[in-house]
């Protein structure tokens, strides 16, 4: 019964928080693509990923929440910041696109949004997302699935990461081309 009650509380919190967090993630992701300064853009991206982490926690996907927190916010965005530091952008280094291109881009993205939502409305899945198995997103359960059914893809992804590391080192340490 304690498990059951915890689930009840979880659902209530979920209902109240989801829309607020969804609003925040949309707001911050709009700020990511509109901020003038790339550093501000990266910091807004950190906030967006933080809202995604909260969404994962609301879905009780604890392993993914932790991985999202550590890998995305800790590793990938720090990598972005370091690259930006290496590149040393000046204020005027980014020329703005013309307004026509911007309007066309926003229109194209808006059309994509309308088409996506229109298509997925047809699916008609208005059922609530309820957690049937509370152990679903826990490390134990995911580890069992990962190392039984997905053992080969797991090993191949380690190969992918190794080759990406070698490639990144090769690319980034190349001497600047003598002109």
């Amino acid at each position, binding site marked *: 019964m304690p498990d059951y009650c915890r689930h009840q509380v979880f659902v209530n919190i979920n209902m109240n928080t989801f829309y607020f967090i969804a609003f925040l993630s949309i707001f911050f992701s709009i700020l990511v693509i509109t901020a003038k300064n790339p550093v501000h*853009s990266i910091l807004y*991206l950190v906030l967006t990923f933080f809202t995604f982490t909260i969404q994962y926690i609301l879905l009780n996907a604890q*392993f993914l929440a932790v991985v999202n927190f550590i890998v995305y916010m800790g590793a990938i965005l720090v*990598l*972005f910041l370091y690259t930006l530091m290496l590149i040393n952008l000046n204020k005027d280094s980014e*020329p703005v696109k013309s307004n026509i291109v911007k309007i066309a881009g926003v229109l194209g993205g808006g059309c994509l949004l309308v088409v996506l939502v229109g298509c997925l409305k047809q699916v008609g899945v*208005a059922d609530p997302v309820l957690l049937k198995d509370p152990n*679903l997103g826990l490390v134990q359960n995911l580890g069992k699935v990962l190392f039984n059914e997905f053992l080969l893809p797991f090993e191949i992804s380690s190969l992918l990461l190794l080759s990406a590391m070698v490639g990144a080192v090769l690319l980034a340490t190349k001497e600047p081309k003598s002109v």
Partner: protein
Amino acid sequence: MESLFNTVKAVPLNHYIILCSIIFSIGVIGVLIRRNAIIIFMSIELMLNSVNLLLTAFSVYHGDATGQVFVFFIMALAAAEVAVGLAIIVMIYRNTNSIDTNVLSRLKW
């Protein structure tokens, strides 16, 4: 208690789909309207993340852990992509002193 449990409404799956579509579209718009290569990369990260969230929502909806394992693989892929991509951007910056994508349209300088 059982009836109370049945009347509790969680977030409908539709709302997850709409949220992820909106964020995916914002990522697409970011790729289209910006010329800074790093911000284009960040928009791609936004798109990957919206797909991750939707996969997780479907995984919870169907009670199947496979979706979350797939999200794990997408995260590994994103890490590899970012490492190689940022190395390429740094190299481009060394060669052209700019990360404007229009400079790269000739591909030969």
